[in-house]
C-alpha cells in the first residue's frame, strides 16, 4: 500500500519541477558564483534569478534577500544581530517574542535571557491567540525587537503580524516574523506587513532541506552570524548553497501561482478530516481556534492516550503524522506550543497529534485515516489507566 504522508509541516518532498531545475547544478553548472570566470558567472546569474524568484514571492526587492542555511539560521541571525540598528546598541537588549515560537526563536531567546538580554514571552489563550494586551504592556524603553511568527507550525494559528508590526514601529521597535509556515501557502507581502526582518525556509515548500532566506528591509541591517567571504553582499559569508537557492527560487515561483487552488483543495481535505475526527472520536480537542487558522494543519488532542503511541501505530498502518514539531523530537517534554494552548494541562499536551496536509494529500485518503485513528485510539484507550479511571468515575 502507498503510504499516506500527513506531516507536511515537518517537511515536504522535493517536487519534480524543482528537481529538474537543480539537476544542471549537479552536473555542468558547478562554478563558484564568486569566481569571475565563465563557470562562476554562469552560476552567479542563476542564483540572482533565484533571488528574484524568492523576492517576488514576498513582494520584496531582490537585493533585500539574503540566502542562508534555513530558518533556524535566519531566526538566530535576527535575534543575535538586530542591535546593530540602534545607536544605544547595548541598551536595546529587551526582546518580546510569542510563547508559541519555533524553538529557533523560543529556545534562542531563552538562552539569550541568560546572557544579558531580557526576554518577554507573550502568552496565548486556549485557541492559540496571542494576548495582545500583554504584548503592548511588555514594551519598554529598552525593547529592541518584537518577534512573532506569521503562522504557527504546530497548530496552524495565524497571528496578526501587520498589527504587531504597527505597534512595534509606533514605538520605534524593530519587527521580525518567522514566516516559514505561511510562505507559498497564503498571500504574504513584506510591504503590506511592513516587517523589518522575515525568515523563510525552503523545505516546507517542496524544495530541499538546509536552505532558507532572510528578508532585510531597506535601511535595516543585521550583524552577520557568518563572517569571512564577501558573499550575499557581505551579509552572509560562505560559499553559496547553489542547488538549494535555485531550488528555493523555483519552488516559491511555482507556489505563488498555485496558492489559490491549493488553498481551496487542501483546505477541503483538512476540514473534512477534522470534522469527522472531532465527531467520531470521543474525548478529543482541537488545539487552535477554528478560524484564524491556516488550511494546512489540524492539531488534535486525544485524551487518555499518549501522542507518540498513536503516531507509532499510525505509522505501522502506513500513515505519517507527528507529535509536536520534528525539532523537538530529541526531548520528551511536550511541545511548549501545545502546553501554552492547553493552559498547562500536560496530559492533553502529551496527547496531541499534528496532521498536516499538502500538495499530495488526497480526499480519498481521509476515510482510511479516520478509520485507523479511531481504531488506534480505541486500542490504546483499552489499556489506558487514565481512561479506565475516567470511565469508572463517570456517573453510570
Amino acid at each position: 500500500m502507498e503510504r499516506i504522508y500527513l506531516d507536511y509541516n515537518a517537511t515536504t518532498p522535493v517536487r519534480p519541477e524543482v528537481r529538474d531545475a537543480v539537476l544542471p547544478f549537479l552536473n555542468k553548472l558547478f562554478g563558484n558564483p564568486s569566481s569571475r570566470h565563465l563557470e562562476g558567472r554562469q552560476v552567479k546569474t542563476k542564483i540572482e534569478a533565484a533571488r528574484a524568484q524568492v523576492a517576488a514571492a514576498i513582494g520584496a526587492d531582490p537585493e533585500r534577500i539574503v540566502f542562508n542555511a534555513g530558518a533556524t539560521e535566519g531566526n538566530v541571525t535576527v535575534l543575535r544581530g538586530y542591535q546593530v540598528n540602534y545607536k544605544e546598541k547595548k541598551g536595546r537588549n529587551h526582546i518580546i517574542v510569542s510563547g508559541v515560537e519555533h524553538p529557533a526563536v523560543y529556545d534562542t531567546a531563552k538562552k539569550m535571557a541568560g546572557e544579558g538580554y531580557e526576554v518577554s514571552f507573550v502568552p496565548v489563550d486556549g485557541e492559540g491567540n496571542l494576548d495582545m494586551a500583554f504584548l503592548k504592556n511588555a514594551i519598554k524603553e529598552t525593547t529592541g525587537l518584537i518577534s512573532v511568527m506569521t503562522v504557527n507550525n504546530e497548530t496552524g494559528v495565524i497571528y496578526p503580524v501587520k498589527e504587531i508590526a504597527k505597534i512595534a514601529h509606533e514605538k520605534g521597535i524593530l519587527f521580525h516574523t518567522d514566516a516559514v509556515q505561511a510562505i507559498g501557502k497564503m498571500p504574504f507581502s513584506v510591504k503590506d506587513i511592513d516587517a523589518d526582518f522575515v525568515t523563510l525556509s525552503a523545505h516546507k515548500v517542496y524544495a530541499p532541506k538546509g536552505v532558507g532566506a532572510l528578508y532585510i528591509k531597506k535601511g535595516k541591517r543585521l550583524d552577520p552570524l557568518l563572517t569571512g567571504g564577501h558573499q550575499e553582499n557581505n551579509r552572509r559569508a560562505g560559499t553559496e548553497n547553489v542547488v538549494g537557492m535555485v531550488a528555493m527560487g523555483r519552488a516559491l515561483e511555482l507556489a505563488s501561482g498555485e496558492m489559490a487552488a491549493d488553498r481551496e483543495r487542501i483546505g477541503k481535505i483538512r476540514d473534512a478530516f477534522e470534522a469527522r475526527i472531532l465527531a467520531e472520536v470521543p474525548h478529543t480537542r482541537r488545539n487552535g481556534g477554528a478560524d484564524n487558522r491556516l488550511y494546512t494543519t489540524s492539531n488534535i488532542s486525544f485524551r487518555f492516550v499518549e501522542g507518540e503511541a498513536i503516531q507509532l501505530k499510525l505509522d505501522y498502518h502506513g500513515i505519517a503524522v507527528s507529535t509536536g514539531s520534528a525539532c523537538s523530537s530529541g526531548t520528551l517534554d511536550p511541545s511548549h506550543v501545545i502546553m501554552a494552548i492547553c493552559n498547562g494541562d500536560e496530559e492533553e499536551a502529551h496527547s496531541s497529534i499534528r496532521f498536516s496536509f499538502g500538495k499530495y494529500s488526497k480526499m480519498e485518503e481521509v476515510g482510511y485515516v479516520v478509520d485507523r485513528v479511531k481504531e488506534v485510539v480505541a486500542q490504546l484507550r483499552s489499556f489506558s489507566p487514565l481512561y479506565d479511571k475516567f470511565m469508572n468515575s463517570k456517573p453510570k
Partner: protein
Amino acid sequence: MNYTEKVMDHFMNPRNVGKIEDANAIAEVGNPSCGDVIKMYLKINGEMIEDIKFQTFGCGAAIAVSSQTTEMVKGKSLKEALDITRDQVADELGGLPAVKMHCSNLAADALHQAVKTYMKEHGIA
C-alpha cells in the same frame, strides 16, 4: 530514534494488558504530566506471581516495557520479581533509545512497588 523489532512487537501486540479484577497487589507509578503512567495488577499466590496485567498511558517504549516486564515475572517468585532491574528489561527488548531509558524504569518500579507492598502487608521478609 529507532525502536528494536522486539520493542515494536511488544508495542503492537502487548501481552497481558488490562486489569485483574481480583488482584491482590496493585501499584501505579508515573504521572500524566510526565507523559507516562504505568499501573500493574498482580495475582499473588504464596510466594508466586500467578498472574500479572498492566495498564499504561505512555509512549511506545513505556507500553513495550510494561508488556515485557509482565512476561518476565509471570509464574516467577516474589524474590525473582524483585531481582528484575530496569536494565534487564531494556536488554530483553534489545535495547531502548537513550532518551527513553527512563520509561523502562517505570515498569520495574511499578512491579517492585506492588510486590513490596504485598510482602509488607503479608509479613513476608
